[in-house]
């Protein structure tokens, strides 16, 4: 008789027990696939949001992120257009965006507040897609009028200064030479980032206006946007020699929130995985131990007929593999259905800590995760069946044959 068929028939001798074991495995797979799928979605979302925010690669002066300059743009990039064109010549690069980070005071004529600003090319908004929630007005225009400089404000900053679309504000900042300079802007848009701390302070102005305010032709950084996130490392290694000592920083080194969440989730899911593995191990060990005990006389008979310990243990391992195959398939089917169900239900998650916007619940169905979960469950099941069967096989044949 085919060994796999023999194992399957043995399992069917106690269908309720087999069903219980299959259910436990299926639930474990469902739990791991669901939590893992949610984790993967979170990682992917944060990865996308980070790389969309700062680019896949940031080109800066050495030590840009470690040392604070005495004056604005003291460690900025000059001749950045040449570098930009060099990157843009590569077909894997979607865009290269120069940026200026600046800070100062914003005033409506009556009240003032501190701002943290970004000077960007106006195409940044169309390039990056919907990374802000525009609550009023528009994003920076591609062609600005020479009469008025447009500005976008975080919603809480606009509220604190009682600003609306079309209102005029003045930005006051220190130039790269250390002098004070001020420019007038007209409110073009009011947005929310979803992070209250940013909404209270952040502004966007055009790169040209930022350079005018700081009286410079430098930029702080160049953000390189690749078509594929996976090509980041390759691009860095290829472009580094041509950068003349400039620093290339991949997105993940600046993705502090992403790293923190990933580290936390990995630990949570790791613990969950271990708990699930223990549950499956104990349940299956219990099931197979009962099965081995009930079939002690049969084991003795087969051993008397000349079956080796290995062959006897293999029978039980194959039974465990049957349980794994059925349990994993059921678990994967359930997790696939859950993935679709969650998409269909369009469930909104509450805002995470430090944010004021929720997000849609999505659970990824990953084939590599499914393979990993299946493999781990199989290993646990094989181990538990081996241990359970070993106990039965170790019993002397003479005792096994008279076991009642």
């Amino acid at each position, binding site marked *: 008789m085919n060994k796999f068929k023999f194992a399957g028939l043995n399992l069917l001798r106690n269908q309720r027990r087999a069903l219980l074991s299959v259910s436990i495995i299926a639930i474990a797979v469902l739990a791991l696939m669901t939590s893992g799928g949610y984790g993967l979605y979170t990682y992917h979302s944060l990865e996308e949001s980070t790389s969309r925010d700062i680019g896949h690669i940031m080109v800066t002066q050495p030590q840009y992120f470690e040392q604070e300059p005495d004056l604005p743009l003291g460690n900025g990039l000059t001749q950045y257009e040449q570098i930009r064109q060099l990157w843009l010549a590569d077909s894997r690069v979607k865009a290269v965006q120069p940026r200026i980070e600046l800070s100062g005071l914003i005033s409506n004529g009556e009240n003032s507040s501190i701002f943290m600003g970004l000077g960007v090319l106006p195409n940044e908004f169309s390039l990056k897609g919907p990374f802000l929630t525009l609550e009023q007005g528009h994003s920076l225009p591609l062609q600005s009028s020479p009469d008025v400089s447009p500005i976008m404000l975080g919603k809480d900053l606009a509220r604190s200064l009682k600003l609306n679309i079309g209102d005029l504000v003045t930005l006051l900042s220190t130039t790269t030479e250390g002098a004070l300079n001020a420019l007038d802007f007209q409110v073009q848009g009011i947005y929310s980032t979803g992070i209250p701390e940013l909404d209270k302070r952040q502004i966007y102005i055009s790169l040209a206006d930022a350079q005018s305010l700081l009286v410079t032709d430098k930029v702080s950084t160049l953000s390189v946007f690749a078509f594929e996130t996976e090509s980041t490392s390759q691009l860095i290694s290829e472009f580094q020699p041509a950068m003349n000592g400039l620093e290339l920083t991949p997105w993940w080194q600046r993705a502090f929130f992403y790293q923190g969440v990933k580290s936390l989730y990995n630990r949570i899911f790791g613990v969950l995985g271990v708990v699930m593995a223990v549950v499956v191990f104990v349940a299956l060990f219990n099931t197979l131990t009962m099965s081995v005990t009930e079939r002690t006389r*049969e084991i003795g*008979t087969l*051993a*008397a*007929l*000349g*079956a080796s310990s290995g062959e006897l243990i293999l029978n039980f391992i194959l039974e465990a593999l049957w349980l794994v195959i059925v349990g994993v398939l059921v678990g994967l089917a359930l997790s696939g259905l859950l993935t679709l169900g969650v998409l269909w239900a369009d469930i909104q998650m509450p805002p995470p800590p430090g944010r004021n916007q929720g997000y849609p619940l999505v659970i990824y169905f990953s084939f590599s995760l499914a393979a990993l979960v299946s493999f781990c469950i199989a290993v646990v099941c094989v181990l538990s069946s081996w241990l359970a069967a070993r106990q039965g096989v170790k019993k*002397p044949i*003479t005792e096994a044959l008279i076991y009642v």
Partner: protein
Amino acid sequence: MLQLLQIQKSYWQGEIEYPALKGINLDVNQGEMVALCGPSGSGKSTLLNICGLLDHQFEGEIRLAGTKVEKDPKQRMLLRRQQLGFVFQRFNLIPVMTVFENIAYPLTLNGVHPTQIKRRVSELLEAVGLAAFAQHRPDRLSGGQQQRVALARALVHEPLLVIADEPTASLDSKTAQQVVGLMRTIGAQQNTTFIIASHDERMTQHCDRIIHLQDGVLQAERDLCDSVLGENMNKQKVLSR
């Protein structure tokens, strides 16, 4: 064919020793059918287990077909697989296997080609009169039919020696006679040696000789056997060494 030399075995309960076999010497010839009888606790099952290479914790020596049987579990396992067959009182068929698969099991273990397995099992099924039941599961057979399947399983790989433990104890008279008859017939065809533990005179009266065991010692035969098996034993040859 089978030689037992100075076989001794004791069981221990705490520090108290209970001798089960006290220096058994026995020669069994090829093709012989030997009955092993004795009261409960006489050491019958212990001796049967040792003859069947199921127990290796004893003192003394076993020779099978002239070769000393070592205590190595692997060698014993291979000898059981290739040269021994077993018939149990409760048949011990594997319930999830069909009759055919149960009988074929020893051949499968020995790596026999499926075509040969089919031919050989079919022969045995014909011989024990169960050809029509080849695809039935054991639980659909009567006790006598199950024991015939067990007998076919014990003989299918043409072993040198078959160990049978009370093979007719669970059977009615007519069925027991059938099973004994089959053992004699097929055993004679294959020149198989049988060692049969039995209290059943329907069984022992067909044996070539009867060995009586009492308190772990082989006894001189007649009187002792009579006391156990009754007057019908008088015609039996009982040998002991």
